[in-house]
């Protein structure tokens, strides 16, 4: 294994994440290459130095703040919730339905009485029914039609 090829494996070797074959190959190279051995030692030192940074603790109020923010989240509605009306809408729709039924029943049980005297067409029915020119007109029409048919023939 050349030094340039080793570069890509050095971190895995220091981590202990190389496969068995790769690790053995790496160790074989390290036994003959002082520069790479030095690089490995330096990488190990960097790892050890990074361990020296202490951890910090989340503040005492951290959990409370997360819980408060979660509690303030609006309840998530699923797609079918669209079909479930809110109580207000359901109440209003029920009232409208009841009102419609009530109005419908009232109108069927007590139909409006129309005074015949209020209808202007029927007002002079007697006069129109006995109006002579109109009766002649209705009798003359079939005769005219018969004359026309005979002429056509």
């Amino acid at each position: 294994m050349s030094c340039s090829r080793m570069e890509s494996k050095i971190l895995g070797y220091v981590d202990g994440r190389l496969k068995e074959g790769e690790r053995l190959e790496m160790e074989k190279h390290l036994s003959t290459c002082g520069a790479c051995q030095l690089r490995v030692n330096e990488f190990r030192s960097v790892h050890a130095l990074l361990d020296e940074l202490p951890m910090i603790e989340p503040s005492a109020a951290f959990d409370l703040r997360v819980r408060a923010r979660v509690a303030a989240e609006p309840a998530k509605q699923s797609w079918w919730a669209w079909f479930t009306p809110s109580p207000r809408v359901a109440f209003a729709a029920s009232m409208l339905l009841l009102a419609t039924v009530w109005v419908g029943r009232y109108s069927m049980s007590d139909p409006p009485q129309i005074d015949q005297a209020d209808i202007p067409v029927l007002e002079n029915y007697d006069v129109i029914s006995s109006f002579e020119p109109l009766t002649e007109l209705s009798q003359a029409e079939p005769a005219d039609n018969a004359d026309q048919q005979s002429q056509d023939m």
Partner: protein
Amino acid sequence: MLDVKAGDEQSFALLLHRYRRPLVNFLYRMVRNREQAEDLAQEVFLRVYRAREDYVPSAKFTTWLFRIATNLALNSVRDNRYQRMEISLDAPVTADAEDGDEKTLDVAEKHPNIEQHLVEDVQRKMIRHAIEKLPEKQRAAVLLHKYQELDYGEISKILDCSESALKSLLFRAYETLRVELAPLVAQRARQ
């Protein structure tokens, strides 16, 4: 997480208890501001809660969790950088204001030798500043690799890159750290 998805509030409390410390520390090392790190960690948990019903266990929960955290941290770091540029183009970015977060209060008890304590303090500052100087993506990769001990596959999913690209990214990052921390590395080699 599947219990949280099923609506078990207690499981969410368990998740919170288990992951708050690693998450806050990861975010703190990314943004170098304790208050901001806690705000971001809260946001991560909130997003987990919001997405609980859509959660599909196709990847490890930690991968999903740290992917959310990394994206938030990277955005925050970029936003902060632009804000700082607006304030001053020259002022160096220092973490001194935040250094006190990691100090132990009872110094005398843990460090009977005050000189030794000062040396360690200087070393910690050097290490912190070396990590800070890394480009954001390299920094995230090192923190996930070193402190969260995630495997290459997980980290590459979190950072949305191939495993080979991640290995190259990590190698460059550790090389930079090796150079930046050369005095400490040499000192350690002599010991």
